[in-house]
């Protein structure tokens, strides 16, 4: 019984892997790593009144 479960679990992960490859998740492995860094800071840069003269933003 446990054996059957272990095999089934293994196969589920295997199928998940195949699907992820098929969907092209491994085609571009670089851009997402850069893209994920953008999102937070995008919110900060909306206001127009923040037109910088001597302070833009400190890191």
């Amino acid at each position, binding site marked *: 019984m446990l*054996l059957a479960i272990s095999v089934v679990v*293994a196969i589920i992960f295997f199928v998940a892997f195949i699907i992820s490859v098929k969907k092209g998740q491994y085609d*571009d492995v670089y*851009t997402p790593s850069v893209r994920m860094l*953008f999102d937070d800071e995008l919110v900060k840069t*909306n206001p127009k009144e923040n037109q910088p003269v*001597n302070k*833009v933003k*400190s890191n």
Partner: protein
Amino acid sequence: MNVTFKKISEILYCQYFQGFYDESHFLGRSIPEILCSYIIGEDMTCYHCGEHCREETIAYDERSFCCSGCKTVYEILNSSDLTYYYELENAPGTSPRYNDGKFNYLENTEIVEKLLEFDHAGTQIVSFYIPSIHCSSCIWILENLGKLHKGIKSSQVDFPKKKIRISFSSEAIQLKELVLLLARIGYEPNISLENFEEKEKGIDRSLIYKLGVAGFAFGNIMFLSFPEYFEIKEFWLEQFKHLFRWLMFSFSLPVVFYSGQNYFISAWKGLRSGILNIDVPIALGITVLFLRSTAEIALDQGTGFFDSLSGLVFFLLLGKFFQQKTYSFLSFERDYKSYFPIAVTRLFSEEGKIKEEQVQVYRIQKGDRIIIRNEELIPMDAILIKGKARIDYSFVTGEAEPVEKNSGDKLFAGGRQQGGIIEVEALKPVQQSYLTELWSDEVFSKDKNSAFQNLTNQISKRFTYAVLGIAIVAGVFWIFYEPARAWNVFTAVLIIACPCAIALAAPFTLGNLLRIFGRNKLYLKDANIIEKIAQVDTVVFDKTGTITQNDRSRIEYEGLELTEEEEQLLGGSLRASNHPLSRSLYNILDNNNISTPEHFTEFTGQGLETTYKDLKLKIGSQSFVCDSNQATASPLQNKVEKTSVYISSNDLYKGCFSFYNSYREGLPELLMELSKDQELIILSGDNDGERDRLGTIVPAGTSMFFDQKPGNKLEFIKKLQSRGRKVMMVGDGLNDAGALAQSDVGIAISEDVNVFSPACDGILDAKRFRDLGKFFQLSRKAISIINLSFLLSLCYNIIGLGFAVSGDLMPVVAAILMPLSSISIVVFTTLATQVIAKKSEIRSQS
């Protein structure tokens, strides 16, 4: 001055990084940058593109820009609150360069339809290749295109491929507007004839699948074999032993029949053509492993070798995967289609009026009238009808200087017009033009790799015979000694001798070196090229653009010295002129003080005449300058054909500026280095005006050939090869394309690896031209590393054979020996390549 500037900026940057400055930006530039710009004077860098502002500085919004193009981009981004672009990276932009009207063909619905990937009601999807994508700011701005125009729904960048996929609504924004928007912010998409034909090819992911299957099976079979490894004799394990074994069997089925299928196919192909390649012993090993293991579990004799079997296939595929490094942003298979425009402007008359229309280039028929604008490519052979043509054929023939043509002259496909608009009449359709016919030569359809026998396959031949010999001798011995074990010994020899480690040596060594080369800007098509480089004994260089630099010319002045006033007026006059020669002369000369001429007349195709106070200068061609004072003209006849600008002051001949090709830095040293081991040949499409000067640079024994047409170059390489030479061709333009394809190793030199290179085996960044010799050395050393790894893996095989011949090969021994030998080979080759890379002072880490 330069040294102090460097020192100061270094100190400032150190403090900056240690946190001495809280405000990282001031007026949009970092404090160290501003201080530096004070130190070096007015030399400011552009806020947008980071170039030094040379000719003029535009101040806008308290920032400095090098040109109005850059300023416009800033304005656009600023008005859409997208200035975060400049905070992500320092000066990330590219200054926009495009002609109006360049994208007019995107109004043609037929072309638009071809370009769109998806087109339904309110949603259109299009993909572009944008060469100027280079940093994270680029990704950010391009993925926020929607903020610039509400018609753009979403956009996604594929950074390694430099591609963008945009989903938009054609009701709100036309494709042409979209492309213009991209061009305006400095991201001009590259649309060529290739896009027009290209159908999205399916990406080949089969190797990943196979690797996944093998890895999955390998792991599971290992788990299932654990009880047997430790010989645990528990009641329930004994109970389930058979189930375990049949589970292992079923896991191994996909490994043998799916993951390993390529080895069988390749071995079969090899055998049929009479070659014992490395896949033959591998396929033999896999077959024997599988059959013996199945027999063992069916007859209840043991557990079989399923773990070793799946491990073997997994490691082999891993090697293949590692070797398969592709530079997705480069293309090694380009032909003329990548450079040709997708459409041209055709003239047609309607109701007596002449109108312009955009036509797909394949639709051009003989006799059609076509308009070619500045910087546009002539896509077919044609006759010039109207306008002044200055055609740059460097692309096709390798000639450095543009050729002047008058109406009635024949123009060949592939030339680029420089100057005004011309009108031409097509002589032939695109496919039948001179340049395109070059591509019908058989070299372009031949697969170069098929004839090449790599090192691994050379070894595998002897190896296979040896292994079969040992297996038979050992089997025969045991038949007489103890017949029951003969079959076991015979199969055990074949199993243990399966050349996993040998098969891995080359992929990992070459794969690793391929990456090291890539970091050093030599991008090779595949790892086999390295083996070929190591065998090269003749290096053939193209001249123009390969050993000379395209962008920077060197000038020499001959004649009477110019007075200060004359120099000042010369600078001013050159600045006012639009002629390409004046522009390049102006850029080279020192222009400290220039006086703006009072009268300025430009005679097209001849020269210019300017006056300032009582000084009159004539600048231009020899006939233009010298005619009026023939007395001095005669002794100045230049026998050598070279491009010169003549100058006379108040009708008195002063002298001339001659342009020379400037050779790449370090060329003499490089040639000297290469000439030790290779024969060098220079093959130029240009005239032999440079022969004498070149002769002083190249090492003795170098042959030089001039006036070589593209076809001649190809034949030349063929002739060398028929004499048994292994030839490397180093070239740059389309004129070398045939020779690059014919040679054993074709290396294209490229100033900008993203933009252009003909079909070749490798692309070398022009900045690293000097290191060509190091690449040679490294390739040779790589071959020695592979040979050493062969020795190492032979040692493992001898140990394994000891077990096998003596008749007691335990599955656990095979399961340990196989991965151990593979892993040690991988470690050895990786370390060794790093060491040789470091020794040759080439960067091994990025």
